[in-house]
């Protein structure tokens, strides 16, 4: 139980840190980015403008502590102000969220499954054919920048072979509906961005899973399982893999932040209109309110997944339950 409480504590503290970073950056950075951006907001909803002024410390004459508390309160009630296009920040984000969530969610699950499976099998049949080819190859590919893999796929499959669309999330003119043809259209548009993410991230999982598995296979309880005459697959899954997967779950935190960062670059490469592309346009438009809200969304996404991974670890590893 103490393990879980400690992780929830870390969750809250990190969330607080992210909120505070957002509050501090506009105040300590040189130049008056925020002032010049907010100066363009004429005649907008006064409540939204006030929320922005509090966030960026422009035209706020109250005491810093009061402003800070007000800012935190605004964040928890979802008052992030308006984008440069005068749309509420939250509306803008909510519209793009499903695209990124689906893209990143599905590709992470696929990459994790492939990576773990290949890692387990290649460590189990160490020195075999699979172990000789896939892990070294995918490990090198994993160090490639995701946008390079994206550009390469884009060049081969969209430009040269013309099999798949160049960009966007569905064809121009298609009306979003639940029809099969529309869903098919969405999927064909998601293949290349998704594939880029899977290719780059699967290698990381393979690498760590294989190494954990090799260490675990040398343990005495694995030998014990063999001595008892248990079937190989049972030793591989229940004895070795179950223990080898634990560091991978806890490593999820760092990896997920990496995957999310990768998704920003992928969405930009493929002009895929999700949160990442919105992030990119927010920097080119100097849309600071949108940009900072997006930073919080990404942080929150990582935090929630880290917490889920922690709960899963607690479930799988009895040692953490009473540690």
């Amino acid at each position, binding site marked *: 139980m103490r393990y879980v409480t400690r992780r929830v504590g870390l969750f809250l503290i990190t969330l607080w840190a992210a909120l505070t970073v957002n509050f501090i950056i506009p105040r300590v950075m040189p130049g008056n980015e925020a002032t010049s951006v907010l100066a363009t907001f004429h005649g907008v909803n006064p409540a939204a403008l006030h929320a922005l002024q509090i966030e960026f410390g422009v035209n706020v004459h109250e005491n810093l502590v009061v402003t800070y508390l007000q800012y935190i309160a605004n964040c928890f009630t979802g008052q992030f102000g308006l984008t440069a296009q005068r749309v509420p920040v939250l509306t803008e984000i909510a519209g793009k969220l499903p695209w990124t969530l689906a893209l990143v969610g599905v590709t992470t699950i696929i990459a994790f499954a492939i990576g773990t499976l290949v890692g387990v099998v290649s460590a189990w049949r160490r020195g075999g054919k699979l172990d*000789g080819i896939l892990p070294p190859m995918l490990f090198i590919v994993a160090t490639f*920048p995701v946008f390079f893999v994206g550009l390469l796929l884009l060049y081969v499959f969209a430009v040269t072979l013309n099999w798949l669309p160049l960009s966007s999330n569905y064809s121009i003119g298609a009306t979003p509906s639940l029809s099969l043809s529309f869903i098919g259209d969405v999927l064909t548009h998601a293949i290349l961005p998704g594939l880029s993410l899977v290719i780059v991230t699967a290698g990381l999982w393979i690498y760590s899973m294989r190494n954990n598995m*090799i260490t675990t296979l040398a343990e005495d309880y694995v030998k014990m399982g063999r001595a008892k005459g248990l079937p190989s697959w049972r030793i591989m899954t229940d004895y070795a893999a179950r223990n080898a997967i634990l560091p991978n779950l806890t490593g999820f935190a760092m990896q997920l932040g990496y995957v*999310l960062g990768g998704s920003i670059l992928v969405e930009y490469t493929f002009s895929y209109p999700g949160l990442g592309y919105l992030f990119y346009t927010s920097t*080119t438009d100097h849309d600071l309110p949108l*940009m900072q809200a997006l930073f919080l969304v990404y942080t929150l996404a990582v935090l929630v997944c*880290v917490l889920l991974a922690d709960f899963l670890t607690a479930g799988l590893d009895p040692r953490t339950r009473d540690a």
Partner: protein
Amino acid sequence: MSTAAIASEAAPVEPIIATREQGSTARFMRAVLHNRKATAGSVILLLIVLISAFPGVIARDDPQAAIYGQDLGPSWQHLLGTTQLGQDVFSQVIWGTRLTLIVTVVVSAIATIISMVIGVTAAYVGGLTDRSLSLLTDIFLILPTLPLLIVLASYLPPGTVTLIVVLTLTSWAFQARQLRSQGLSLRARDFLAAARVRGERTSYIILVEIIPTMTSLIVASFLGLSVFVVGFAAGLQFLGLGNSTELTWGTMLYYAQQGGALEAGNAWWALAPGAAVAVMGAGFALVNYAFDEIGNPALRPVRKRRARTTA
């Protein structure tokens, strides 16, 4: 990987142990030379260093001069074609190496030093210091790197210094955690107790007694960081958050993306700098991977025969 390669990689295990009396540098060089991954990685990195030192020898064209035909395909005059503005792409890749390498090495070096000081201090001093430094590390570990980079870079004036500052600030945490756990394992050693009895200051013990024993881990941290920094620096510039007047592979990618290089049929303009980033990252990664194998004998490739008996 072929059987022959596996056998040749397995061979150096004995000599490394046998020559323990030799200097650690000699032992290290021997290990590197016997490891195929390390050799490949070192050759790549050496070439990159040479190219960034003498770019003019390889590419005579002025990389920024827009004086050639626009969007030309590869030819003997322009090995990788020209950009939309009529600059030589090959020349840009070669001349762009230097700043790309400098940013990577500087960021990785500073971040390694920060992670070393924070990680080892947390481990050695312990108590409240450890708890607060570990908390700081955990927070930076969880905050998503690229979004944080984008926010920071958007507020600062674009340029190499900004790039170095923001990348350093966001990349030290992972290594700090690793160095902390290594430091914890050293804490109870006798030589540290001896130093304490001699009455040495904590800063002396950390800098002179502990850190030198962790050299190999620190080098591995530097290499691991470099792999990520190459990619993140290029990614940030690719998004247009670098200084677009400076010539690096990342800014080349930015211009290629803005100019629709792929759609215009000028694939090399985008793919060449992308491949260059990938090769540099792979160079660091190969050496780092080999380092893991040298440091952790369990991970070294095994001979076929032994693999069969365990399977």
